[in-house]
């Protein structure tokens, strides 16, 4: 077991990041058993790495359960944030295949690769997306709360789309499931093409040959990117 050091900075082994990430995703599914954890990680010597995590004070192990410490939680959150933003970047902007964006995201999730500053830039560029392409939540960063205007976002809410231009829906974030289902059955879903035909007194959009009128508040929750 080694800790590599580049650019004079102490860098944690990628295996540790990987493992911490799994602890987080396991918790998202409501599980915390070590056996579950080890069964899903491809890393060899998982048990040893896990003990290393404990030594670093990032997790606590109790019998068969694993729990993140405050510190570990903060670390994991950043890893997940980098991972899922990277997924979005490769899926939505570079339009690579699922196989490619999943692989790239695994490479980019480490702090040694993607710095805090770079992550914020990517996040702004993507319009501070709330979920990854799998639909899992992306942990919020400092940039997400105060809306930064410096970087012209690539992904914008529908309310800022130009009239009559063609856009593609990247993600939708309504507060509840019900409007999402309704919009979906009318053909408004990620990946679909959409055009704003009117903004006032209500929003009217066109998907395929269907015109749909909707509340502005819903249009704000639909994020799109322009189709060239």
């Amino acid at each position: 077991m080694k800790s590599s050091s580049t650019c004079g900075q102490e860098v944690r082994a990628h295996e540790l990041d990987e493992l911490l990430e799994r602890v987080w995703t396991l918790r998202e599914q409501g599980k915390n058993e070590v056996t579950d954890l080890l069964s899903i990680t491809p890393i060899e010597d998982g048990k040893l790495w896990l003990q290393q995590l404990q030594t670093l004070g990032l997790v606590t192990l109790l019998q068969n359960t694993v729990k993140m410490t405050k510190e570990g939680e903060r670390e994991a959150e950043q890893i997940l944030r980098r991972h899922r933003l990277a997924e979005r970047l490769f899926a939505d902007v570079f339009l690579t295949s699922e196989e490619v964006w999943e692989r790239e995201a695994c490479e980019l999730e480490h702090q040694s690769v993607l710095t805090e500053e770079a992550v914020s830039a990517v996040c702004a560029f993507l319009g501070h997306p709330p979920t990854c392409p799998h639909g899992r939540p992306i942990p919020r960063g400092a940039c997400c709360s105060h809306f930064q205007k410096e970087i012209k976002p690539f992904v914008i809410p529908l309310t800022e789309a130009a009239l009559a231009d063609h856009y593609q829906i990247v993600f939708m974030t309504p507060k509840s499931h019900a409007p999402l289902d309704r919009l979906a059955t009318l053909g408004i879903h990620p990946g679909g093409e959409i055009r704003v035909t009117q903004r006032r007194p209500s929003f009217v959009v066109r998907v395929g040959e269907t015109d749909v009128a909707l509340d502005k508040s819903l249009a704000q929750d639909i994020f799109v990117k322009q189709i060239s």
Partner: protein
Amino acid sequence: MAIVRNVMANIMSEPKIALVGNPNVGKSVIFGFMTGRYVTVSNYPGTTVEVSRGRAQIAGQDVEIVDTPGINTLVPMSEDERATRNILLNEKFDAVLQVCDAKNLRRGLLITLQLIEMGVPVLLDLNMEDEVTSRGISIDKVKLAALLKIKVKGSTAIQKRGLSDIQKEILTVQPSEYRFSYSQPIEQAIATLTELLPTTFIAKRSIALMLLAGDRSLTTWLHQYIPDEKIKQIDDVCHQVARQFVEGLSYVIYRQRSRYVEEICHGVITQEKRQEMGWAVWLGKWSTHPIGGVFMLLAVLLILYEFVGVFGAGTAVGWLENGVFNGWLNPLAIRGFAKLFYFSPFMRDIFVGPYGIITMGLTYSLAIILPIVVTFFIAFSIMEDSGYLPRLAIMMNRIFKWMGLNGKAVVPMVLGLGCDTMATMTARIMDTRKERIILTLLLALGIPCSAQLGIILGMLSALPAWMTLLWLGVVTGVLFLVGSLASMVVPGHSSDFIMEIPPIRRPMLLNIMTKTMARLEWYLKEVVPLFVIGTLALFFLDRLGVLPVIRNFAHPFVTGFLGLPDQATDAFLIGFLRRDYGATHFFDMFNKGQMDSIQAIVSLIVMTLFVPCLANALMIVKERGMAVMVAIVGFIYPFAFLVGGIVNWTLRL
């Protein structure tokens, strides 16, 4: 015995066909073609809100045809959609004719896939071929049929094109062999669930998927087949799978299904770019323009006023009432009945007295109201068929939000101007219970229905112009006030505004005429008898000496508080039966010079806000329950008088 059994067998084996599809795609047009029975056809989604049945002759045998409310998915989100899903669950169909708007094929195929999953035999009809062609879209039906392993036909229902071909083939369809699968956790859950589900004529796989999509209303249905503990197990499985996804399961399932739809559509649809133009697009655009739309609305209201108020209630009524009835028919009847019942003034007065069936009941219903409703129904049908109503929803959405509703409620509200009873049923298209209750209340409170509206317009046209504005101001003001108060009081939550806007279409003369005739028939059958009954009631109350007692009792309210003449009490009495009947009485009094203009406007306002008619009250009980009806009527009754009193006192200051 044998004969009876034969007949029974025949009834049992009579084939049954359901018409299913997205909203506003032409199902009801096709139903009318097949059965010869008219059900309302209009150009907005949600015209049909309950199942209708009819009969057709196909290949020499009697077939039952069922028309259903439009749906966008088989996991229902509102009451009308639930009706469609339920009928597919509870009745066995020999064939399902899925009507699809061909220019929105993707949305249609989402339903096709669900029907295939159900295991029912489907014939897919790509309707609206005329619009598809004009928009430069072409669809390879042969390829589509081969991919889905079902029969696919095309039609233009309004021109009856392609319909007989469909009718010929509909009974030959078989369940499709097409299969498609979902991601592993969902498939695994389906496998677990099918073990627990009962055998019905719907494929278990399909029911499992509905359950996974979170369709709670299915649980009651399941109760009749399987014990509680199994239902509990089912619930557990659903929750467990749901926990694995951040997004709702119904959405996840939808996404996976729509991937198949995309795949299918890929080689089937070709679209050439076309600039859309023409008067319909232009009109549609201006009718929802933030400023232009307001002018359009004013123009529509003006035309309605001129046609129904001035022409219908003025010219046509004047001619019928004064010319035909009072000038000719009534004198003749009075002389005739006087001769016939010379021995009994009592019998004579039943027919031709002051409260006579002919001189009051029939004169009111045929000479005054009939021309008004005919002109109104014509104007109204044109509005329904043009596609203007949903556009009005775009204009009014913000305002309706104040009342705890959203733009979607505009459609039932405007329908209420035709008939509040029907509109109360259309409240089903609203997503939440709270919205349905508020809508029902507002309909009962402040939306005058066709005949009453015509009479109001007729009376207003004889009053100074500012009174028209006063009436409009008071009624809309009351609607907003009560609506916004109700949105605070009624528990529950309101939903977001999401509404499909159909294209502007040219109203077709034949449909306008058929629709007007159908409504007229309803009017003659349902309303005229009520008018006669109301007249009889007044007659007996008068003869028994009860009427003066009631008038005396009501005197402080009617004369003191509202400042109306004593006879106005009669109008309120019959107003309980039907508001338009009460309004007609005011109209009559006003024409005879028994009321001044302030009395006229007060009586109009009170009658507009007066209790819902009997039929509407019964509909409220049926749709929303007794408690809601009692609450609504209990509120409206004193409230209408209060508002009328305030107007009266303000004007007389």
